[in-house]
Structures are given as structure tokens and as C-alpha cells.
């Protein structure tokens, strides 16, 4: 029993990261229907910026908030300079541009900060002795913090999308950009904002999880695969769905990897993809995605 709980907690630790990054993917997708493959690298780069801010003497919370701000602005810049000039129907080119961005950010971070992993301080006590005992396992403050912030961010995004004029404009734009323009919505600005939000959320993920993954250029690579799976599973337009799917994916992969003898750690990633396929075959819009409803 204790072991099962320990495994669920282990899965939760990773699942929270998948869900958080998935949330960033959803931010871009909700606004623009684009998948940003550079999302993970943007988060990684942001974490390094947080490190740089911390290294020049800023307190950790200020460094984290600082990188969120930088991420926010950089997201807008990326949209304006790299994405918008491609036009609204350039799905394939945009995918390629995000791959390019992926490579540039990865190489850039390597050149600037080197290949050795850097220690990144946590916002909460995180020495080995800082934990809450829970059925023989240890709930640590660091993942709890990530989970807490994730819930706050998710709720904030939910409120933004559901109850604000801006959120309404974003949803209208995502659903029918042409109509949105004819309602006077500045569609370009909304797209920018989607990228800014996503990059801000990504920056937060990067800076928050760096203490547990250590700060390296490769830190986000795997997470992005899981996050894309989680966003797909959760339904690409549902923040809550993406987060929940991320967490469930983390737990499921861990439980299956641990208790199904032929899976083990080698096939954990395959488990995630099999779950993804299975769900998509039953519900093509994901678990919580909106079905496209339209009468002829």
C-alpha cells in the first residue's frame, strides 16, 4: 500500500510538469490553433534567464518573476517577428519555424551557459530533510509548490478565458478568426497575446522545475513530448483538461511501468503514446476537448 502511494506520488511529481507545460501549449493553441514545438526550449531558456538573474544577486522569487516577464515579452516578439509574417494559413511553415526556434534556443543556451548542469535554487525549503511524511512516502515542498502554482495558473487562465472580455476575444478568434475580425477584434494582437501568455507560463514552468531536474539545455526535451501528449489527451482547447491529462499521464505511466512486468522503465514513453492513441481512437477531441458542433 505504502509503495503504491509512493508510486502515485512519484507519478504526480512528473505529471504536474507535463500538465504545466501542456498548459503553455494550450495557451498558444487556444489563440491561434498552432502547436509550438519550441515551447519546451523557450521554457528551458527562460529557466536559464532566471538563473542569470539570480546569479547577479536578485532574490529567487524576483528572478522567477523577472523571467516570466521576459518570457512574456519574448513570446510577443516571437509571434510578431517569426510567426505573423507567415500569414494565417501557414500551418506547416509555422511548425517548421517552431522547430527552427527549438534548435536555435537549444544551441544558444549551450553557447551562453555551457553544458554542465547548473544548480538552481528552489523557492521553498528543499534540503533532503524538508518534507511532509505521508503513508511512508515523502511529500516534498518543491513538487507541492509546482502543483500549487499550477492550480493557481490554471484557475487564472480558466477565469481569463471564461469570464473576461479578453478571454472571450481569444476564444472567438480561435474558433473563427474571420468572424472575430468582423466583430472588430484585433486578431493579430490576440494571437500575440496567446504567444505571450504561453511563453510566460512556460517561463514559470522552467524556473519552477529547474531545482528538481537541474538546469541543463536538455531539460525540457522529453517533457515536451509528454506535454504534447497531455494537451492532445486533454483536448487542445481545455486548460483544465490538459493539466488533468498531464497529471493522469504521469501517474498512469508510472503505475504501468512499475507493475506491468514487460513494460518497465524502458517502455514508459511508449505507455504514454499508447494511452494517447487509445484515447484518440475513442474520443478524437481528447478527454475534455470541445466537440465541433455545427448544424448544416
Amino acid at each position, binding site marked *: 500500500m505504502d509503495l503504491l502511494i509512493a508510486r502515485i506520488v512519484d507519478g504526480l511529481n512528473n505529471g504536474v510538469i507535463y500538465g504545466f507545460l501542456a498548459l503553455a501549449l494550450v495557451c498558444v493553441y487556444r489563440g491561434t490553433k498552432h502547436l509550438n514545438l519550441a515551447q519546451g526550449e523557450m521554457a528551458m531558456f527562460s529557466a536559464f534567464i532566471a538563473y542569470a538573474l539570480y546569479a547577479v544577486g536578485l532574490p529567487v522569487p524576483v528572478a522567477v518573476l523577472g523571467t516570466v516577464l521576459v518570457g512574456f515579452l519574448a513570446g510577443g516578439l516571437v509571434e510578431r517577428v517569426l510567426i505573423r509574417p507567415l500569414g494565417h494559413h501557414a500551418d506547416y511553415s509555422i511548425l517548421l519555424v517552431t522547430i527552427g526556434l527549438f534548435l536555435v534556443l537549444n544551441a544558444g543556451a549551450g553557447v551562453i551557459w555551457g553544458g554542465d548542469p547548473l544548480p538552481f535554487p528552489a523557492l521553498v525549503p528543499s534540503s533532503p530533510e524538508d518534507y511532509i511524511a505521508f503513508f511512508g512516502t515523502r511529500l516534498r515542498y518543491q513538487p507541492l509548490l509546482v502543483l500549487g502554482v499550477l492550480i493557481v495558473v490554471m484557475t487564472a487562465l480558466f477565469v481569463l478565458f471564461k469570464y473576461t472580455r479578453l478571454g472571450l476575444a481569444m476564444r472567438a478568434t480561435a474558433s*473563427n478568426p474571420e468572424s472575430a475580425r468582423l466583430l472588430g477584434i484585433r486578431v493579430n494582437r490576440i494571437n500575440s497575446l496567446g504567444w505571450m501568455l504561453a511563453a510566460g507560463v512556460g517561463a514559470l514552468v522552467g524556473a519552477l522545475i529547474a531545482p528538481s531536474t537541474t538546469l541543463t539545455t536538455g531539460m525540457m526535451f522529453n517533457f515536451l513530448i509528454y506535454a504534447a501528449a497531455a494537451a492532445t489527451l486533454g483536448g487542445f482547447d481545455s486548460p483544465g483538461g490538459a493539466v488533468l491529462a498531464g497529471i493522469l499521464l504521469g501517474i498512469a505511466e508510472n503505475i504501468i511501468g512499475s507493475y506491468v512486468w514487460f513494460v518497465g522503465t524502458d517502455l514508459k514513453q511508449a505507455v504514454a503514446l499508447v494511452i494517447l492513441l487509445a484515447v484518440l481512437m475513442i474520443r478524437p477531441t481528447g478527454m475534455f476537448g470541445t466537440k465541433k458542433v455545427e448544424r448544416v
Partner: protein
Amino acid sequence: MSLLRIDDMSAGYGAGDVLRGVTLSVDAGEIVVVLGANGAGKTTLMRAVSGMIPRRGTVELDGEDIARSSADAIVRRGLAQVPQGRGTIVDLTVEENLRAGALVRKGKGLAEDLDRWYTTYPRLAERRRQKAGLLSGGEQQMLAISRAMMSRPRMLLCDEPSLGLSPLLTEELFASLSRINGELGMAILVVEQNAMIALEIARRGYLLEVGSLGDSRPADDFASDDSIRAAYLGQ
């Protein structure tokens, strides 16, 4: 002075102009109809006026030049759109569609406006929490008109509101446009194939024939001669 003044406007999609030298005006408080058979260029005219496609020539709203404004800016200046095919935002609920229509205007009165349109089109009120994609064609057309009106525009453009609707619904819809014009003094430019119904509520009309617009004539004039039939059915 005309509320909307278009002078010598040409427009098209890429190669070749679909519209050539169109001149048209709408006065405040007036309903004007542009009639035309299928393929005459009615929707192109609408999209050119609303800035959705590139155009050349003069386009003025209340004396302000909007020929180079973007589509969203034109709406913000008070020229609201009911696009062809209704432009329903299918993932939003009926009420969210209406609220989206009011995004461009600041200030209060949102609740009153919602109320007004729910009263005008009670069927929308019944379905306010439904996804707009589930509405019938007629309901979506009502939604499109209400949504455009939620921006409290100076003028309304309607692109073929009768499209795909039964004669009865078409009749009902035009009656409501007439009421909007009467009660709010709203200027409306409507392009429409269904000439008889449109002419019934319009003061003046234009006839669009493969890209060129004739002179405006009083609505009754059209009703009494054969020009539309000729334009629509040949010879």
C-alpha cells in the same frame, strides 16, 4: 451628407478585378439594397466595403476615409457586419457570441442590449446557453444580426440574409431588419438575391451585374419593371 459613400471602388481576389468602378451611397436612417444574381459579385462588394479584401477607390464612413483601414478597425468605427453564411462562432454559446459582438464598444448597457435582442429574437433567449453551432440556420441569422448590433454601430451591412432560409423565415427576418431601421434609425446596406422581399423594406436599390453597379433607383421603380428579371434570368 451620406453616411456611407463609395466612389469608383474596384476590388478582386488576386488576378483580375471582380468589381469595377462601383459607386454607391447610403444616407443616415436609410435601408439600401444591392440586388444581384448569383455570381454578380455581391459578396465581393460586401467584403470590399468591410475591408476583408484589398480595394481601390473611395470608401468613406460619415466623412471619414476608411478605404485603407483594416476590417477590425472599420468595425470599431461603427460599420457592423453580418457576413454571408452568418459567421457563427460555433464553439461559443449564443450569449457569448452576443457578448463577443459587444467587445469593441466600451461603456455600460451590456445587459440592456442583451435584453433588447433577446426581446427582438425570443428564440435566442431560449437558447442563450447553447453552443451557437447547434442553432438552426434562421436562428444563426438572427444571432448574426443581433451580434452585429451589439456593437451599437452607426450602420449595418448585411450579406444575403435570406441565404438558405425558407420564404417564411426570410420574411420574418426582413421584417425585423425593417423594425431595427425604424426603431433605431439604423442605416442598413443589404445585398440580397431575393429582390422582392428586399425591395419591400428598402428605400432605394442598386442592381449589380457581373461586377458593375447600376445607378440607384427608388425601390418601387424596380418592382414595376422587368430589369431585375432580365438581370436574374437572362435576356
